[in-house]
């Protein structure tokens, strides 16, 4: 087993700043933006992106959390997962631009669940997807709109995202099996 750091603290900060700019550009401003993170680390990333967008645009963008546990298609294959809270900005998501934020985009099944969860909460005008790392191996026709880093990986490898708020430091490491 070997672990190799692919993103350091400064890389993550740069990636999130770039994603924030891209979101603002594609939305033509900060109007009607709702940034929703997918627990657990997506929520932290969403918070950071919302703060960056707020400081660039001057508008106050509040992030939220969208828990997808109850919508997963693999519940029966794992030990019971505890759901996490879902928090939405007070104005809701109807008619707004929702940007989903996740740490690692892999099979796309989490995002499929997130889209179902969103449908039950309201009807956004557009839904976009931001991911810190895209490691490929999609099992569904889902693609991200904003990516921090494309990280072609083998399915035997594991990717760990560490964020200061949870883990004490910022880093993305890849742990290989056959190196």
């Amino acid at each position, binding site marked *: 087993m070997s672990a190799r750091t692919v993103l350091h603290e400064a890389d993550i900060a740069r990636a999130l700043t770039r994603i924030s700019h891209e979101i603002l550009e594609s939305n033509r401003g900060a109007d009607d933006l709702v940034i929703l993170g997918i627990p657990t680390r997506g929520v932290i990333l969403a918070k950071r992106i919302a703060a960056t967008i707020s400081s660039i645009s001057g508008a106050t963008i509040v992030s939220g959390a969208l828990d997808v546990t109850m*919508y997963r298609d693999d519940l029966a*294959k794992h*030990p*019971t997962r*505890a759901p996490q*809270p879902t928090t939405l900005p007070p104005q809701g998501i109807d008619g707004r631009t929702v940007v989903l934020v996740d740490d690692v985009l892999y099979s796309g099944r989490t995002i499929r669940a997130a889209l*179902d969860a969103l449908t039950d*909460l*309201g009807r956004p005008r557009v839904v976009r997807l931001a991911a810190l790392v895209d490691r490929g191996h999609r099992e569904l026709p889902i693609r991200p709109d904003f990516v921090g880093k494309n990280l072609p990986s083998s399915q035997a490898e594991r990717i760990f995202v560490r964020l200061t708020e949870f883990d004490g430091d910022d880093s993305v490491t890849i742990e290989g099996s056959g190196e």
Partner: protein
Amino acid sequence: MRHLLSTKTLTRDEAIEILDVAEDMAETQFREVRKLPTLRGKTVVNLFFEDSTRTRISFEAAAKRLSADVITFSAKGSSVSKGESLKDTAQTLAAMHADAVVIRHSASGAPQTLADSGWIDAGILNAGDGTHEHPTQALLDAFTMRKRLHGERSRGRALDGVAVTIVGDILHSRVARSNVWLLDTLGAEVTLVAPPTLLPVDLGPWPATVRYDLDDAIAQRPDVLMMLRIQSERMHAAFFPNSREYSRRWGLDDERLARLDPASIVMHPGPMNRGLEISSGAADSPRSTVLEQVANGVSVRMAALYLLLSGDREESTRV
């Protein structure tokens, strides 16, 4: 979690986990679409050998909000009234691939028998057995107390130091038993108030203080006053002279309500006998949590069904 049979065997962490998941379930009940797809394709059987409307529809609502299919099997007018044994009923349900069985039975221990027998592989949820336990009621009561006391900051918390006084027919009450065990696990201090005839003979192992006078108990300023229903269907002996005397000495009337601490809450598991154990003034006052208990009941039962049915059952060996 494999089964939910009693609160006595629940650890503090398990109890708090159920309450926290119930918190998430409660949040989904304010959405535009209240139904979650989580238990799609699972079958929940409501097996009711004893009459119950409230618990049955609460479980039914909980299962349906999680998209499970619900089959209700009530003993009246069924094969049971033709003399079918619990074993045959269980095996019939197993053959129909029931994933969970919610059972209410007049015999204490029937859910345990069903869980241990090997007749059926489904998760068993005790919805009240004889005078033994009614765990989801105790969990929803604890959830309601936690919500009133801690509000938004309920998650992850227990009920340490909360003074809970339970009044009424302790002898026959499975609600009282489940509550005593759960509240003790969660750190609350329980006082039981009843006429001596309506208390079990040996209260030694119960983690609770016993009083016989309601006015004394109210003078101790409890945070929670839980009134139990006088179960006329179980009043087969002379437990108290008449209902007027009971009401005068152990009923919560308007005058006693006024003496309670303003921040305290009044609970009742329902259905209420207005004018007997609780006055209309008390039942309808803002301190009463009767309707919150009903709403929270659905959330707590959703949590129990979720924890029982969602994971890989091979890996959840815990009973």
